[in-house]
Structures are given as C-alpha cells and as structure tokens.
C-alpha cells in the first residue's frame, strides 16, 4: 500500500521545532536551578518524539543523534546521572545541532556534518564511553536456514485470549507466507460444567510449507511469547508431504472450521473498502496550513476594497428618500448587516497576519543564558505579555532592534555580580521584556535593574562629538535621547557583545520605519527602561481626516500633538516670509498645506483655519488646515505602486464616498518645510526651551 509519508514531513518539522523550543526552555529552567522533576521528563519526551518521528519519516541521522541524547536524558530521568551545568550546556548545544539537522533536511541545505559528529561524540563521551550499540544483530540469526517448511506446535495457555491476541488471526498471517495446514487438538476442552467461555482450551499443530525463515514465524508469535508453549521445527524436503498428510488425517473434524479459514475474502474486502477512501486523502485534518503571505495580502487588499464599497453603499442608503418606506427600511437593515459583516471579515482577515509576540520573545531566554555566561554576569530574564499579538511583518522587523536592546541591557545595563553586591543590590540582575496593547498600538518594554544610563558621560560625549553646543543646558530626558543620535556609544571599550557598529540610531530608525517610536527612561543605579511603541499592523492606520480647500488629507493620529484655533497675535513672521506660531513657550513653524500642494484654500485668512501640531524626531511643525473632519481607520495603499513617490505623502486611501485621500508623511513635510523658506525653517523644539 504505497503511502507517501513525505506528506507528513511538514507537520513533523513543525512539531519537532516546537519540541526543540520546549526542550530549550526547559533546559534553561533547569540551569536556572528550578528542581522540578517534570522538566526533565518534558525534555525527555520531546527528544523521544523527535527520535521516533525522525526514524519513521526517514531522517536516520537525526534519529541516531537524538538516540544518544535520549539515552543521556533517560539516565537523568531515572536519577542515575547528575544534572549538572556542563551536561545542560551540552544538551543545549545538542538542541542547536538537531535544529540545524532538521533545517537542513527541510530546506535541503548543507548539514554541518563536523559539528554533528563532534557534538555526538561529546554526548557519547559523557555517557562514560559506554558505546550504546544495542542495535540490530538479531536479524542475522535465522537468516540462513531456509527449509522446505516448518512444523509448529502451538499450545496457548488458557488466558491467552485475555491478552487481546487471537490464534485464528495469527494463522491467517502464517497462511500468507506459504501453504498452511492446521490441525486442532480439542482434547483439552473440559466438560460443560467446568467450561469457562473466556478461556482457551484448544491447541494446534501446524505445518507451513514455503520459503519462510524461522525469524518470520517467530515474529508472528512474538506477542504471545510467555502465554503459550511453542515449538518450531524444520521439515525436511522429502517427508514434508507425508507428515502434513498424516497429521490432517489424524486430526479431528472440527479443525477445518476453525483454522482452515481462508484469508482471501479478508483481503478482498479490505481492498474494496480502501478504494473509496482514496478521495479522503486530502481531507485529513491539519491544525495549521502554510499560506504564501502575498495571498494573504491580496485578501487583505480585497477586503479593504470591500469595506470601501460597503461604506459607499451605506452612504447612498442613508441619503435615499422618496422611496417606498418599507423597502427603504429593509435596505437599511441590510446595509447595517453588511457593515457589521464586512467589519468582522476585515478583522478576521487582519488577524491572519497577527502572531503572538512570543514568537519573537522566545529566542531571548537562550540568548540571555549564553550572553550572561559569556559576560560573567548573573541575569534573570522575565517575560510577560508574550500572548500580545501583532502583525507578522512588524514582528519580523522589530526582532533585530529588540535583540539589540536586550544585548545592551546585558552588556551595559546589568553590572557584574561584584559590583551589584557592592551597591547593595541582589547578585542576579533582572531584564524584563514586556508587551501589551494600548490603543491601536503595541507597546514593548525592555527594562533592566542595572546601573542606568550615565547622563553625565552621555552629555560629555555629545559635547565632544559636537552633537550639541558646549554651553547648551539639557534636561535629563533630552540628554538620554542623545543616545539615539548617529555615531553614539558610551561603552568604554567595544565588547564582543554590543558595540558592533550598529548603534541605537539604527534601532530608532528601524522602529521609525515601522511607524513607531522609542523612548528611554533611566535612573542611576536603579536601571533603564526602553519603551517601543509600534502600530499593530502596517496595512491600516488610525488617521485624522483634515480638509484643505476641496481636498481631504489623512494625518496619522500617532503624529498629532494637538490641534488649536489660531490666535493671530501669536504669529510672528520671520525673515519676511516664514511664519512661526508661539505655542506656549515654544515656537513652531507654520506650514500651509494649501501652499505646499497648490490647493486653493477656502480662506486665506489665518484665523479661519486650524493649526494641527505634529511631531516627529523631536521636531514639531504646525499644519494649517481648513477643518478637522472625522477620525477613522484607513487602509493604506501604496502611492509608489499605483502612481509614483510624492514627497510629503506616505500613501493614499479611498474614503467611504469613493474619493481618494492622500496620507501625509510628517517626516517628509518637516524636511520640505526646512528647504522651503516660505513655510519656515525646521525647528528643534529643545532649542526654544
């Protein structure tokens, strides 16, 4: 029955990687000294499953390797072996090796054979050099002596049936190997008064003719070993017919009914019933499927269009008049339902792309374990909020910045055990990863209880690099922000761990590229906390609709600081042209969107408009608009793919009434206002403080 087992490979890989992750985290828990005996069982089970699966699915190298791991783990599980640091480290390394082997098997990549062999021999060495070759060798036994046939005497003990074995089925199997003659001996049947229907009173003499090895026969009787008397003797070529004939003659008549049952009908029936099942081949339940991400994006896009169509219809429906009122009622009910359904559909589709952030967090326990031993520090990693979901693309892009932040926390944040004790802090430092949803954003916090950021050193460094003027006073907050400036590192010497040339400026840039922001707070000797704020998805945006003349623009809500009615007295004109607005103690350049995009405004007078103050990278500008409309979630459409890149715009969307609205790019607007004197110079807010 040629079943293609490669169809199970995908799921085998998925579950094996999950198993490896479970092993890894349990190993790390063990190395942290939690003496939970369930942990070692869990590790053993995972190794065991991988071994079993890899053997079955044809990855013999993996199976061989995990066999050694399993043996070691088994000894630990049975308490025969001490669970010490070096064993745990070796096991962790082995987890990596297995992962590598599985990845190579899955992707058809190159296997690091040297590393596999080296780790395997270290595992074997740890097993006291007792080579664990308990394999094979048995297959050699009965191989040679193939006879004309076999004489089998089979006398089950009375309780054989209670093991679930059935002699008749075993005879069927024997009959498939060759010509089988069966003679039953009923002499053991007691009188009716003593007869127990659950017991077996019969015994059999069988002769099996054909090219059969003793091994094959033994296999059939393998499971009843110990539940019966069994003798198997070869039959010589000449006398085989005689013996068989003689036995059949001497046998009683009942024999045929029980034992000569033909196997043929059984197999026919099987074949018949197997055929219609071919169609179910695809229907085998799978708990997850892999889908190309472009398909999902297409789906998201289509749903976006559907939402637009729906809101268009909704608008038309609400404007209908002079129609049969009962029909209008029905139409409106239908439209309300359509709206609800489309919203749910959109949410479900968006959710396809959402993954719990644990996918990203899961790599950290291992990293912290490895790094802290490398740095000679004691660090405990706390993780919370790992179930918080975010878009897969966002997650992929945030992983590197997070790694950087955690590395920094270990390298620069947490002090050495001695230094910590000297400060009266516990020897073991804590790095805490936390995630939660807030509004339409996900907040990820990386905090440590280390030495904190040295504000004075940062300031000195910034002055030395001429990032700020020598005499310029800075608040603590502003000072700390300097670490995000390009080319800034306070590490006294570059270590292997951080300071590889990728600075915090790259972290901030990556986060900004995702439409997010990063902030830091820090207290001397108490620790630091980095707070990363990210949109949940890159496909939709919470926007504020602004009207300028006849056009509608969308400003990402996250960028808006405040909106206010203009007070003409507070406007100063600098250098003849550039207008600055005095916002409490600050000055912000005023950007007239109508001028920038060449739109005819509703009114040229400033006090008829509203000033929307937006901020990015610590720079603020005030946008002059005619009106604030509503706020809504919009589906972002790329301008580049549909038209071309336009400075000051990050994309477009289609509104409920079918009109296109452009999405403003705050960074771009700030840059433009800097070049265009008419709209005022860019303005660092701290300079005005």
């Amino acid at each position, binding site marked *: 029955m040629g*079943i293609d087992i490669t*169809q199970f490979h995908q*799921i085998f890989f998925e579950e094996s990687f999950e198993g490896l992750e479970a092993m890894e985290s349990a190993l790390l828990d063990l190395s942290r000294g939690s003496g939970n005996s369930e942990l070692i069982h869990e590790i053993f089970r995972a190794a065991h499953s991988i071994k079993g699966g890899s053997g*079955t*699915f044809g990855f013999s190298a993996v199976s061989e390797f995990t066999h050694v791991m399993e043996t070691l783990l088994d000894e630990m599980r049975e308490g025969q072996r001490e669970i010490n640091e070096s064993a745990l480290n070796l096991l962790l390394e082995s987890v990596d090796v297995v992962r590598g082997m599985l990845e190579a098997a899955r992707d058809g990549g190159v296997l690091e054979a040297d590393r596999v062999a080296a780790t395997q021999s270290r595992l074997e060495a740890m097993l006291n050099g007792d080579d664990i070759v*308990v394999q094979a060798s048995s297959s050699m036994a009965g191989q040679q002596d193939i006879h004309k046939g076999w004489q089998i005497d089979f006398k089950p003990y009375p309780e054989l049936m*209670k093991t679930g074995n*059935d002699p008749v089925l075993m005879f069927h199997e024997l009959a498939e190997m060759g010509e089988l003659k069966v003679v039953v001996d009923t002499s053991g049947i007691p009188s009716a008064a003593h007869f127990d229907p659950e017991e077996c009173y019969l015994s059999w003499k069988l002769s099996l003719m054909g090219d059969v090895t003793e091994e094959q026969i033994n296999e*059939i009787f393998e499971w009843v070993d110990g539940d019966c008397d069994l003798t198997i003797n070869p039959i010589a070529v000449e006398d085989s017919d005689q013996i068989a004939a003689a036995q059949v003659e001497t046998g009683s008549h009942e024999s045929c009914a029980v034992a000569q049952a033909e196997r043929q009908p059984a197999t026919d029936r099987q074949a018949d019933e197997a055929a219609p099942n071919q169609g179910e*081949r695809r229907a085998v339940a799978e708990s997850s499927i892999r889908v190309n991400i472009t398909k999902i994006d297409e789906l998201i896009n289509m749903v976006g269009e559907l939402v637009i169509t729906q809101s268009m219809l909704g608008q038309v429906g609400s404007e209908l008049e002079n129609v049969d009122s009962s029909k209008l009622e029905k139409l409106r009910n239908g439209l309300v339902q359509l709206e609800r359904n489309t919203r749910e559909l959109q949410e479900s589709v968006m959710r396809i792309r959402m993954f719990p952030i644990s996918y990203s967090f899961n790599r950290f326990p291992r990293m912290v374990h490895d790094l802290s031993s490398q740095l000679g520090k004691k660090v405990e990693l706390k993780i919370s909020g790992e179930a918080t979901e975010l878009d897969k693309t966002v997650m992929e892009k945030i992983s590197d910045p997070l790694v950087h932040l955690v590395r920094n926390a270990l390298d620069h944040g947490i002090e050495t055990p001695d230094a910590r004790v000297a400060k009266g802090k516990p020897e073991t430092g804590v790095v805490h990863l936390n995630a939660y949803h807030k509004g339409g954003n996900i907040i990820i916090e990386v905090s440590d209880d280390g030495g904190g950021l040295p504000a004075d050193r940062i300031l000195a460094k910034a002055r030395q690099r001429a990032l700020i003027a020598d005499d310029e006073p800075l608040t603590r907050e502003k000072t700390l922000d300097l670490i995000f400036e390009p080319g800034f590192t306070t590490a006294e010497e570059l270590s292997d761990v951080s300071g590889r040339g990728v600075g915090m400026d790259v972290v901030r840039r990556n986060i900004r590229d995702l439409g997010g922001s990063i902030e830091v707070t820090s207290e001397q000797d108490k620790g630091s906390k980095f707070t990363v704020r990210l949109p949940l998805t890159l496909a939709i945006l919470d926007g504020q609709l602004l009207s300028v003349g006849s056009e509608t623009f969308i400003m990402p809500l996250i960028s808006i600081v405040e909106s206010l009615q203009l007070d003409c007295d507070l406007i100063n004109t600098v250098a003849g042209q550039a207008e600055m607005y005095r916002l409490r103690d600050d000055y912000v350049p005023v950007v007239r969107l109508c001028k920038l995009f060449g739109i005819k405004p509703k009114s040229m007078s400033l006090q008829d408009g509203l000033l929307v103050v937006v901020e990015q990278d610590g720079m603020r500008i005030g946008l002059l608009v005619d009106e604030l409309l509503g706020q809504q979630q919009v589906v972002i459409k790329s301008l580049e793919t549909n038209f071309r890149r336009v400075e000051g715009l990050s994309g477009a969307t289609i509104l409920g009434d079918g009109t296109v609205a452009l999405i403003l790019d705050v960074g771009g607007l700030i840059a433009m206002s800097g070049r265009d004197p008419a709209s005022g110079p860019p303005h660092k807010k701290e300079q005005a403080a």
Partner: protein
Amino acid sequence: MATILAVDDSNSMRQMVSFTLKQAGYEVMEAADGVEALELAKNNVFGLVISDVNMPRMDGITLIKQLRSMASYKFTPLLMLTTEAGPEKKREGKEAGATGWIVKPFNPDQLLATIKRVLA
C-alpha cells in the same frame, strides 16, 4: 470494519498512524494522551487501540492497564508503540495487559501488516 483508537502525543505520528489506517479502510479516532484516550474508550467501541508509551498526563502503560480492567476491553487488542525494543519494556507492557508492541520506527506497510495479526 473495526474502529481503531490511535493515541500519541506527537501530532505527526498520530496523523501518520491514523492516515495509514484510514487508507486501509478502518475508522480511526485519535487521542493525544492516556486521559483523552480513556475518555474516548468509555464512550466508544474500539476494535483495536494503538498507543504510544511516553505521553504527558497518562502514559501508555497506565492506559493499557486501565483499559484491560474494563469489561468491554477484556479481549480487545491493545498495542503499544515503542522506541524501546528492550525486553523490560515489553514485559512491563505485557504485564499491564498489552497484546503486543510495534517498535518505532516503522513504515505504514509494516503497521498494516502488524495489526492484521490482531484485527480481523
């Protein structure tokens, strides 16, 4: 044809066993551990139970002991799936009431051939 209960905490193993048996025309139900299996066994009639040994919550040996003690599974073939071919594991299984064992790794054809020994 008989309904078979396949018990394994490994999803891929379970699916492989289950798929193979379904292909051969058997009805198959699945359980991920002994507790689940016992629950299913109480509410269904299985002609054969194939169970992994190492599982969370309730292992295969305990499951077999429990099943064998139930009147409706007194004569039912109960097979263990095991990676350990050693005689102790087998004895332990037999003592618990297992009919036999299938040693991993195995392929679908071996599985089908083996269960024919205990299932009509």
